[in-house]
């Protein structure tokens, strides 16, 4: 891969007192401006992997390079964190200020950005996630999806090159989930930012360029969604489910229908089935 933004070289990490390592010998590269989804059941190592990407966790062996900088090098910590921003699962734990725009300004203020530029960055970040109209609201009164979008704006205001989202929709209702996912997809489309989305909702991965499936601290599968989702039996064996579209196609194929397994969206799936019936 040419000039990847993130490189993991044989990364291992074990939490104190844990029976098994959270990551064992993971090597992978993440291409600039790609949208990568990381899947895996609870305990598969996917969150630890996410935390390695901006030096919240530093590998016990192997190394992680962000723009070529080793995350174990404390002198480079600020550069690493500026390059890779992180959004966590629980929106309530990430809010620090009592006004939305102050919250978004928190990171650039800490980075010593001049005030006029902070103003511009905050407005831009809030517009990007569709929350500009709420800039003077109190964050704790917003819905979960809105809070999570404010958290994303807070990361955007640092102007990172890569944003890592660790199960950002796990605590949201369907409306909130849609809001956050559409904000995430826009980031990728309009700003060319590298996006790493950690999730166990298969439907959220349909739009990713690349899917990495983790199991027992290792990479179990790695490929485009169209390549990974058809491996229905293997995914099930890893405790994961496939989108209902693939599930239906899989069942029909077992009954002898001549269908592809890579029609991931509802519309594609319906078209393929309709071709066989209506004709």
């Amino acid at each position, binding site marked *: 891969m040419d000039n990847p933004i993130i490189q993991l070289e044989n990364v291992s990490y074990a939490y104190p007192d844990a029976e098994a390592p959270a990551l064992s010998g993971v090597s992978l590269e993440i291409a600039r401006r790609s949208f990568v989804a990381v899947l895996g*059941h*609870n*305990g598969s190592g996917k969150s630890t992997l996410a935390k390695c990407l901006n030096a919240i966790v530093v590998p016990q062996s192997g190394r992680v390079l962000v723009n070529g900088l080793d995350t174990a090098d404390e002198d480079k910590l600020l550069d690493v964190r500026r390059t890779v921003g992180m959004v966590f*699962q629980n929106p309530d734990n990430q809010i620090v200020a009592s006004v939305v725009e102050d919250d978004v300004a928190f990171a650039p203020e800490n980075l010593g950005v001049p005030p006029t530029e902070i103003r511009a960055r905050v407005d831009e970040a809030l517009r990007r996630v569709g929350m500009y109209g709420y800039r003077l609201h109190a964050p704790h009164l917003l*819905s*979960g999806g809105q809070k999570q979008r404010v958290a994303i704006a807070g990361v955007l205001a640092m102007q990172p090159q890569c944003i890592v989202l660790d*199960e950002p929709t*796990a*605590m949201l*209702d*369907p*409306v*909130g989930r849609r809001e956050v996912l559409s904000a995430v997809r826009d980031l990728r489309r309009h700003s060319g930012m590298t996006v790493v989305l950690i999730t*166990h909702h*298969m*439907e959220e991965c349909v739009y990713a360029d690349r899917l990495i499936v983790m199991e027992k601290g290792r990479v179990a599968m790695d490929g485009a969604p169209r390549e990974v989702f058809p491996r229905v039996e293997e995914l099930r064996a890893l*405790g*994961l*489910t496939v*989108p*209902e*579209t693939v*599930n*239906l196609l899989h*069942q*029909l194929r077992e*009954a002898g*229908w001549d269908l592809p397994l890579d029609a991931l969206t*509802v*519309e594609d*799936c*319906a*078209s393929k*089935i*309709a071709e*066989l*019936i*209506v004709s």
Partner: protein
Amino acid sequence: MSILETQNLTHVYSRGTPFEKVAVDNVSLSVDEGELLGIIGHTGSGKSTFIQHLNGLLKPTAGKVLFQGRDIHASKDALRAVRFGVGLVFQYPEYQLFEETVFQDVSFGPKNMGLGEDEIRERVYEAAAFVGVGRELMEVSPLELSGGQKRRVAIAGVIAMRPRVLILDEPTAGLDPAGRESILENISQFQRETGAAVVLISHSMDDIARFAQRLIVLHEGRLVMDGTPAQVFDRANELKDMGLTVPMATEIALALRARGVELPESVYTTKYLRKLLTALREGGGPC
């Protein structure tokens, strides 16, 4: 037969202030013995406020709640009966674990009921078995468990009271697919084996479509739909207008119909959709 009933239940928050809000608006609902009832509605629809009335945590602004035919606020005895008879599992119940061992945590409810030690032990083991928590975990600190195990222990703590109605608010939120499936199976088994009624709140339409026998939809504090999953998901477009989703199988069926495939409206599980499609094809063309 109805075990739990609300009559014209209304709840108004911050009454008489500028923040006055009608959270539950004139809801009359009867939960039958032994049924698995699903409640859907998006955030702010009044679901959580509504269920907190069902075991007396909130008092209605107007209207009544009846448990086994008795107004739960009529006397202290009636309120005590509903606290033990209607078990409520909140969202993220694992944050409420507080004892030193799993056994002690699960036994908290039965202890409060004033039961003897043998009876408590029997109930704790029974409840733990229902949620798949093994005996080897009984003396472990709840803090050492994984997220999924903690959730199970918290649910066991409510089941150990042997409630006649078990209410769960988003019991699968944040769990991975395998964990979700297994907790729902456990709950469904509890319902079948004990004959208790279960009220399940979920955002996952696919889960609720498979497990609930009856569904109600709350919207802006009002009960707007009540029927079998087939009847409710038939009204897919109305649900979408309310900001709710429909099961993926329903979406696929709608898209198929738009492409000229003749399917009935009430398709809400993948299993059923597959059957219909197979029948269509083997029938040799549209029927």
